[in-house]
């Protein structure tokens, strides 16, 4: 990912050059995005934000069930939307299970589709 900003070397050059030509269209006048997770728009920080850990991995919660509303409600915003993974720090497999459980809970009226979760 750091190869985008450096000058293309002999072997990597062939691959990164076509990417480079596509990039300027997307990011506009700002130039190629530094490949860090988040923080790319906040004052051009190139470092990692403090590493968020996945709550499920740390506490070794085995099952994410649609029935534990209190656990699920932590990952749902005020508006009822599911908070994205980059804000909560959840790892991908757990986020997928979590999202599935939240949708099941919404279907059985344990969580709202829109509006405040009680």
């Amino acid at each position, binding site marked *: 990912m750091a190869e985008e900003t450096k000058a293309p070397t002999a072997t990597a050059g062939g691959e990164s050059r076509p990417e480079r030509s596509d990039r300027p269209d997307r990011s506009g006048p700002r130039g190629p995005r530094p490949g860090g997770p988040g923080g790319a728009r906040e004052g051009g920080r190139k470092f990692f934000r403090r590493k968020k850990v996945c709550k499920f991995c740390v506490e070794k919660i*085995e*099952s994410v069930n*649609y*029935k534990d509303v209190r656990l699920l409600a932590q990952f749902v915003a005020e508006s009822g939307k599911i908070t994205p993974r980059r804000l909560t720090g959840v790892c991908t497999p757990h986020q997928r299970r979590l999202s599935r459980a939240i949708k*099941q809970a*919404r*279907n*059985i*009226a*344990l*969580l*709202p*589709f829109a*509006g405040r*979760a*009680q």
Partner: protein
Amino acid sequence: MNRKYELMFIVRPDMVDEELNKLISTLESSVTSAGGSVKSEIWGKRRLAYKVAKFNDGIFVLLMIEAAGAVVHEVERRLRVSEPVIKFLTVRTDEELKRQEKIKKIRDSKKKVSAQPAAAPVTPATPEAPAEAPAPAQV
């Protein structure tokens, strides 16, 4: 070929206890007569997150069924037809339970390896391995 299901349904809040029990027992009997097992839990009255059939509360009931698919299909049909039931959700739990057991087995086997005092010298990278090295020498 019995599969495990969890069926949660919501009953209208103005329902009497005995009628609720009657409803549950009819559903249970329809499962057991078709050769399955069922366990039921009544969660009680809870506030719903949104209005369902013009109600703001509902009585939640959870059924844990172990039966073939057609049996559950029949139960769902009955729930759809019955008037006091306002919502239901069926979840198949075989894979989830299998996965949890697998995780538990792995965790238990890891614990056993570290808990044994006479640990075999080929213990994998458990952090207790270096601490155990002096112990077998003394025992």
